[in-house]
């Protein structure tokens, strides 16, 4: 059981990293064509794929990769907050993102320096990021319910829907990550495996949305 979960998990992880890098390359080819909110998501996507690759390489070499988890949480928070600040402009949001960014950054830095150091998984920061993304996603979906549909809005709704599902799963896994250390390894792997599958689907879907966007913008420019 342990072996099978580990093997399948490793395989899924490798596919996920491969797809992440592949889509990142696709995005980088036509990065300038993207609107600002999609560029920020692209930065998150590229950052996430790159850090996954580094994490994997460190893990294979038997080195401690928790530093990169802290680093990724930092990047994730910045890109996600800026992403939501951009998409919120679509429904003329009056939310002051400055009040979200600075306390959030301070919390992440304090957590890394004093609470969950570099030798621990940054579950508090990651949970905070996941909770923030969930709240902002629901808020965005609620406020754009009566907005006039456009290609960009529909696409951003699809992306945000995906973010909502992905971060809902992540929130549970991350919140219980430290408690999970006490349960048998095979069960731990099972839970992480579920998140891995959702991450894989998330990456594939985001890749499809980017491809759809490029196709649409090429069609528009051809017309």
């Amino acid at each position, binding site marked *: 059981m342990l072996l099978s979960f580990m093997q399948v998990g490793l395989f899924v992880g490798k596919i996920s990293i491969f797809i992440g890098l592949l889509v990142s390359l696709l995005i980088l080819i036509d990065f300038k064509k993207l609107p600002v909110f999609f560029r920020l998501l692209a930065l998150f996507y590229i950052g996430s794929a790159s850090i996954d690759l580094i994490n994997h390489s460190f893990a294979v070499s038997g080195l401690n990769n928790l530093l990169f988890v802290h680093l990724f949480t930092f990047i994730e928070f910045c890109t996600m907050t800026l992403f939501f600040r951009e998409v919120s402009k679509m429904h003329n949001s009056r939310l002051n993102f400055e009040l979200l960014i600075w306390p959030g950054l301070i919390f992440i830095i304090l957590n890394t320096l004093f609470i969950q150091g570099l030798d621990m998984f940054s579950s508090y920061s990651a949970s905070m990021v996941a909770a923030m993304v969930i709240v902002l996603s629901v808020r965005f*979906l609620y406020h754009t319910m*009566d907005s006039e549909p456009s290609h960009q809005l529909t696409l951003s709704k699809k992306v945000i829907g995906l973010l909502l599902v992905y971060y809902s799963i992540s929130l549970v896994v991350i919140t219980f990550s430290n*408690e999970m250390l006490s349960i048998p390894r095979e069960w731990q792997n099972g839970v992480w495996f579920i998140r891995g599958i959702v991450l894989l689907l998330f990456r594939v879907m985001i890749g499809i949305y980017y491809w759809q966007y490029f196709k649409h913008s090429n069609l528009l420019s051809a017309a």
Partner: protein
Amino acid sequence: MKDVNLIITILSALIFMMGISLLVIWFFSKGQKKIMKARMLQKEQELNFQKELLDNTIRIQEEERNRIASELHDDITSQLNIIHLNLHVLKKDLGGPNHNNPVLEQIESSLASSIDRSRKMAHELMPPLLQKFGITYVLQELENSVNQSMALQMQVSSSHLIGFETVHDQLHLYRIIQELINNTLKYANAKNIKISFKNEGDQLCMNYSDDGRGFVPSEIKPGSGLKNIQSRCQLLKGSFEINPMHEKSGFHAKFLFSKNGNN
């Protein structure tokens, strides 16, 4: 046992969060569809109201024209005719038909032209022949009267294909053609006008063209004439396109109407 409880808690939380997030997406997506549907319905109602309003405005306008035309024809023109007759009697009394009084001559000629003008105006306001003989005959009359002026040659072909049953629809078409001819006379400096009709599936197609100056559609501001054409076209469940073949000279317009008009 503690491990089992923890794993059950985690799995339940996972299922719960997954379900909640999917439920939220479903709820907002359904809500959006509902809002859009309601908005579409409202827009449709607004459009219907505007159409009804337009229909009524044009109907009232036509009724008013009809009233003015009959006043002009039955009252003013008749009175002018009586004055003309009395003038003849007066001339006779003053010294017979050979009596030459320049003032009387002037009055007689002005009176004759006024009678002619008021009759023409009455006919333009509401062509009486339309009700009696239909659009084909009226277009033929229009063609003859334009050609008589010698300044412009007009050719109407296949007008028998017009299948509008009501006088109202025929009048809308007549007004559209009138407006187009007016524009040609005012702005185009043209020598020839061609109007042709043909059937295109279940639609009636009318092509209007002149060999005048022409214009670029994007460069003109739609005036009341063009708006009038648009409104009447809409009432005939039709559409039109200016210069559909992108020709470089003259004015060309293609109209498509529902074969039965507004019915």
